[in-house]
């Protein structure tokens, strides 16, 4: 086993909201051609039929209102742009078309093609270039938040492609239940009580002991009592607590992006500032789904999940066999055992990728369970989780490197 994996004691996952890879990190391709971002020629037809190219005009707030549709049917339109060919081939040409449906405003709908200048997201882009950035981490389902987040906890959404609540399912246990049964410690840190948990209300109802708050996460880092596995939920709403304004930090449109940047930075700082914790922790930052925002990489077919979503749920007049991934999202693995500037599945000069590795949210319970509960019965995992790639091999350095990067969060 690599020394970094030998030293590993904690895995922390921070899952943010609703931004595509190209929207957040696509601008990095200009600095590093191995990153499969944007070269400026990518385009979508707008409502007049004119091809509109991607632009680095994304702003922190105010552009993506209304919230771009990313229910299953809308994402299907974004990926296939209404193609009825058999078989259909994803072309990523329907993003403007989909957003246009919401306001019937051509100019406004073009904003779905905007991406951030790297300097405007200093936290995320610095982490992406300092540690390991994934060229192929996809949402698990071409659909909305709840079912995608379910894959991070259960390795499946139990056949859901919608925002409907799902409840305790005996078929597959959550990763927290698995670890607890193996006498390991696992925790979901939600931001605070008014923000609470988004996707695992069922766990909160039945097993509230699995939950902590963001403040407790920071305290646990300081005290060195972080559990084996931590999953962090951002603040989902603007709200006040004891007269203090709490800004949403989830980066869900149309929440403020800088608040999310500072939240990510604070998680990194909390781990980095404790030297013992820093050398024994792997932090994964990942987004749950693309939120209806453009990405140029077609989602790949995948192993069926053993479930079928009915046409009444997909909204496309067709069932979904869970045989295609969702749109690509940003994902970064942070550890002093990760080589600096690593690109997972780097783009070659000819535009191809050798030894392609594909990740999705089922990679999270797969990795965590393999590491903390070795020998876990594969029959207790979904087919997707059984097949999912894991990421701890990326802690590949023979010796831990010095990382002097820190984030300053001015008041």
């Amino acid at each position, binding site marked *: 086993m690599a020394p970094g994996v030998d030293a590993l004691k904690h895995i922390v996952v921070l899952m943010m909201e609703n931004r595509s890879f190209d929207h957040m990190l696509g601008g990095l391709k200009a600095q590093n051609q191995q990153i499969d971002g944007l070269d400026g020629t990518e385009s979508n037809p707008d409502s007049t039929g004119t091809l509109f190219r991607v632009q680095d005009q994304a702003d922190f707030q105010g552009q993506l209102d209304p*919230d771009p549709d990313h229910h299953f049917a809308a994402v299907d339109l974004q990926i296939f742009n209404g193609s009825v060919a058999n078989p259909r081939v994803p072309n990523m040409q329907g993003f403007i078309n989909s957003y246009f449906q919401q306001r019937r405003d051509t100019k406004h709908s073009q904003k779905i093609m905007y991406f951030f200048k790297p300097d405007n997201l200093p*936290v995320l882009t610095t982490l992406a270039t300092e540690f390991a950035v994934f060229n192929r981490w996809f949402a698990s389902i071409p659909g909305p938040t709840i079912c995608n987040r379910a894959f991070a906890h259960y390795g499946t959404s139990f056949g859901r492609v919608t925002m409907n609540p799902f409840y305790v399912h005996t078929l597959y246990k959550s990763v927290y239940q698995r670890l607890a049964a193996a006498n390991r410690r696992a925790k979901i840190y*939600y931001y605070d009580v008014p923000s609470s948990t988004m996707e695992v209300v069922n766990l909160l*109802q039945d097993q509230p002991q699995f939950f902590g708050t963001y403040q407790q996460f920071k305290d646990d880092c300081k005290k060195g009592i972080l559990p084996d596995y*931590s999953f962090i939920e951002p603040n989902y709403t603007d*709200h006040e607590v004891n007269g203090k304004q709490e800004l949403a930090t989830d980066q869900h449109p149309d929440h403020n992006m800088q608040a999310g940047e500072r939240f990510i930075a604070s998680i990194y700082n909390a781990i980095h500032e404790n030297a013992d914790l820093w050398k024994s922790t792997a932090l994964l930052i990942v987004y749950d789904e693309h939120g209806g925002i453009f990405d140029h990489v077609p989602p790949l077919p995948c192993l069926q999940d053993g479930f079928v979503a009915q046409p009444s749920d997909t909204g496309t007049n067709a069932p979904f066999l869970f045989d295609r991934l969702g749109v690509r999202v940003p994902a970064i693995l942070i550890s002093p055992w990760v080589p600096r500037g690593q690109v997972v599945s780097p783009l070659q000069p000819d535009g191809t990728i050798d030894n392609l590795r594909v990740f999705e949210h089922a990679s999270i319970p797969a990795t965590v369970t393999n590491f903390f509960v070795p020998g876990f019965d594969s029959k207790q995992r979904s087919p997707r989780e059984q097949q999912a790639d894991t990421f701890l091999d990326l802690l590949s350095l023979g010796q831990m490197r010095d990382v002097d990067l820190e984030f300053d969060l001015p008041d």
Partner: protein
Amino acid sequence: MKIPVPKPPPNAYNPNRPISDLIKSQLEHVLETENRLPHAHRSGQSVDSIKTEAEASDYIARVTARLRLPRTVIAPRPPKNAFNKRRHMSDLIRNQVLHFREVEMTWPEAEQTGINAAAIKSEHQASAYIARITARLHEMGGAPSSGGPNKSGPSASDPDTAPSPNPDTLSSWPRAGDKPSRKKPRKKG
């Protein structure tokens, strides 16, 4: 035995000497390293413009000094007007409210809040409702806790952890019987 080593002649020093292929390759290497620094820490100099050994050493010295600095990246504060507690909740938050409402509906009627969840409109109202249900769940099963071995943390009534929603918002909570919002719900999640 001491072997005399002659001193180089004064004219051997030539900072204007054109850079060799070796120095060019060193510059490329340094540039690659510099490009991994945050933008604020980069020199901004074009390596293509470097022609002499003096220029090359000056550039290399500046980048090396930057590499030795602790790299502090500033995460700017959002503007004050970013906070908007009256923002209409997205479909995502609406669904979160519905999840919590389903939980509440499993309680005996006397323990239910009586809040008409269907009439909640703003993020602030949603978070106040979610706080009530979450706090109650923690009262029943264990407060949010630190990373100890699945132990209970401080009580939900602990001022450090318990929510204290704005009283103005509390009084504006929709009650059962209130009419739901007439605004068409936004469809996105």
